[in-house]
C-alpha cells in the first residue's frame, strides 16, 4: 500500500480505544492461556507417546471403524427420514387414533435412552428366537449390525418426525389458504409452497440431529459393533494406552465441527434471499 492510501485508511478509521486491563480482560487472557497450555500439553503428550507400532497397527482399524460409524449413521438417518414422514403425518392428523399412535411412538423413543432401546432390540429379541426362526427373521436379528440400524432408525424417525412437524407448522396458515385460492391441490401446495419454506426452518434442527446421531452412534460399541468407538475400546483394552481415546476424540470432534460448519454454510446460502 502506498503511503497516501495508508493515510486515507488511517483517516477513515475511528480513533483507537485504549481498552486498558480491566478484570475481565485479565481473567479472559488467563483462561485463553490455560486452553493454549492444555492444547500444547495434548500435542506434547501425543508426541511423547508416539508409538509407530501401535499407530500402524490400529490406524487401518480406526479408518474401518470410522467408515462403519459413517455408514451406520447415513443408513439410519435416511431410513429414519423416510419413516418420519408417516409419523409426522400421524402427529398432525385430526384422526384421534392415528395421532395418539404417532404420539406414543414419538414419546417412547424420545423418552427412553437410545442405549436401552438398542439393548432391548439386540439382547431382548433373543428371547423370541424360536418364533423369529419360524418366520425366518432370526438371521436378521442375530446380527448386531442390523439390530443397531433398526434401533437407530426408529429412534431418529421419532426425532425427525418432530422436526418435520414443527417446521411444517411454522409455515403460516395463510400460505395454505393462498395456495388453495389459486386452485392448487393439497399435495401440490405441500410440495411447492409449504415444504420449501419449512425446510429453511428445519435445516438447523436436521443438522443438529445428524450431529447427535454421530455422537450417540458410539453406543453401538457396547453391542459388539466395531465402529470408531468399538475399535477404540478394543485398542485400549489391548494396549492400555490412553492415547487411543485421545485419537478417537480428535476424530469425532473433527467430524462434528465439519458438519456444524457445513450446516451453517448451507443455511447462509439458502437464506440469502431473506437478508436485506
Amino acid at each position, binding site marked *: 500500500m502506498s503511503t497516501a492510501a495508508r493515510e486515507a485508511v488511517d483517516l477513515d478509521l475511528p480513533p483507537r480505544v485504549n481498552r486498558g486491563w*480491566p478484570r*475481565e*480482560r485479565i*481473567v*479472559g*487472557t488467563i*483462561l*485463553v492461556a*490455560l*486452553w493454549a497450555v492444555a492444547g500444547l500439553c495434548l500435542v506434547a503428550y501425543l508426541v511423547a507417546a508416539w508409538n509407530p507400532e501401535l499407530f500402524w497397527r490400529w490406524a487401518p482399524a480406526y479408518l474401518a471403524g470410522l467408515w462403519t460409524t459413517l455408514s451406520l449413521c447415513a443408513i439410519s438417518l435416511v431410513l429414519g427420514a423416510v419413516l418420519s414422514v408417516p409419523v409426522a403425518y400421524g402427529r398432525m392428523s385430526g384422526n384421534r387414533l392415528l395421532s395418539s399412535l404417532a404420539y406414543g411412538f414419538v*414419546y*417412547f423413543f424420545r*423418552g*427412553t*435412552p*437410545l*442405549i*436401552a*432401546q438398542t*439393548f*432391548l432390540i439386540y*439382547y*431382548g*429379541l*433373543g*428371547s*423370541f428366537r424360536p418364533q423369529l426362526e419360524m418366520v425366518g427373521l432370526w438371521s436378521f436379528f442375530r446380527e448386531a449390525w442390523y439390530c443397531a440400524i433398526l434401533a437407530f432408525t426408529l429412534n431418529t424417525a421419532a426425532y425427525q418426525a418432530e422436526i418435520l412437524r414443527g417446521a411444517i407448522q411454522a409455515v403460516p396458515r395463510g400460505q395454505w389458504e393462498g395456495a388453495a385460492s389459486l386452485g392448487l391441490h393439497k399435495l401440490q401446495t405441500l410440495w411447492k409452497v409449504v415444504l420449501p419454506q419449512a425446510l429453511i426452518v428445519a435445516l438447523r434442527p436436521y443438522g443438529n440431529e445428524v450431529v447427535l446421531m*454421530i*455422537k*450417540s*452412534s*458410539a*453406543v453401538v*460399541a*457396547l453391542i459388539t459393533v466395531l465402529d470408531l*468407538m468399538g475399535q*477404540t*475400546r478394543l485398542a*485400549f483394552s489391548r494396549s492400555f494406552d*490412553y492415547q487411543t*481415546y*485421545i485419537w*478417537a*476424540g480428535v476424530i*469425532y*470432534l473433527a467430524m*462434528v*465441527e465439519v458438519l*456444524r460448519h457445513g450446516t451453517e454454510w448451507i443455511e447462509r446460502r439458502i437464506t440469502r434471499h431473506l437478508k436485506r
Partner: protein
Amino acid sequence: MQSTWTLLSWGPEGWLDDIAYGAFITVSLALATLPLGLLVGFFVALAKQSSEPTLRLAGNIYTTIFRGLPELLTLFLVYFGAQIGFQSLIKLFRPDAAMDVNSFIAGMVALGVVLSSYASEVFLSAFRAIPHGQYEGGYSIGLSKGQTMRLVVLPQLIRIALPGLANLWLVLLLNTALVSAIGLSDILRQAGIAARVTREPFLFFGVAVLFYLALAVLSSYGIRAIERAVDERSPR
C-alpha cells in the same frame, strides 16, 4: 422356569427391588449432576456474552469441545484418564499402591461437563433476550455489577431459560444410562444382570425401558409444577 410375576416380585426371588435400587442410583446421579452442570454452564454463558473477546473465546472453546465429543467417549476419557492420572501420581509416593476411581464421581464429572456446555447455550440465548436497559436501570439506582446480576437479571434469566433447562434435564436422565458402561449399578446395568441370570432379556430390558419412561413422565409433571410456580410469582 419361574413365572414372570415371581421374577418381577420384590425380594430375594424377584428382581424388582434390584432394578428399583438402580432407579435410585440413576436419579441420584442425575440430581447430583444437575447443580454442577447448571452452575458451570451459567459461568460459561457469562463468559460467552461478555464484551471481552478473550473471555468469549475461552467460553466458546469449552462448548465446542464438550458438545462435540460423544457422551460415551467423554465418560471413558474422564474415567480412564482419572484412573491413569491418579495411578501415576500415587506411584510417585507408594509404588505398590493401586486405586480405583469411583464411577459415580466419574459419571458426575463427565455428564456435568456435557450438561454445562449445553446449559451455557440455553443461558446465552436467555441473556440475549434480556434488554440492555435492565442492566442500565440497575446501575442507575446504584446497584453494583454483582447486585444487578443477582437481583435484576438472574430472576428474569431463569424464567426465560426454564423451558430449555427442563429439556436438558430430560436429556440428562437419558444420558445417565451410559454410566452402566463404566460399571455403575444404574437401571440399565441392574436390568442387564437380571437378564443374564434369568435368561429373560426381553422382560428385563423392557422393564428398564418402562422405568426410564416412568421417570420421564414424572419429570414432566414436576417441570409443569415448577413452571406454574414460577408463572404465579412473575409480575404481570
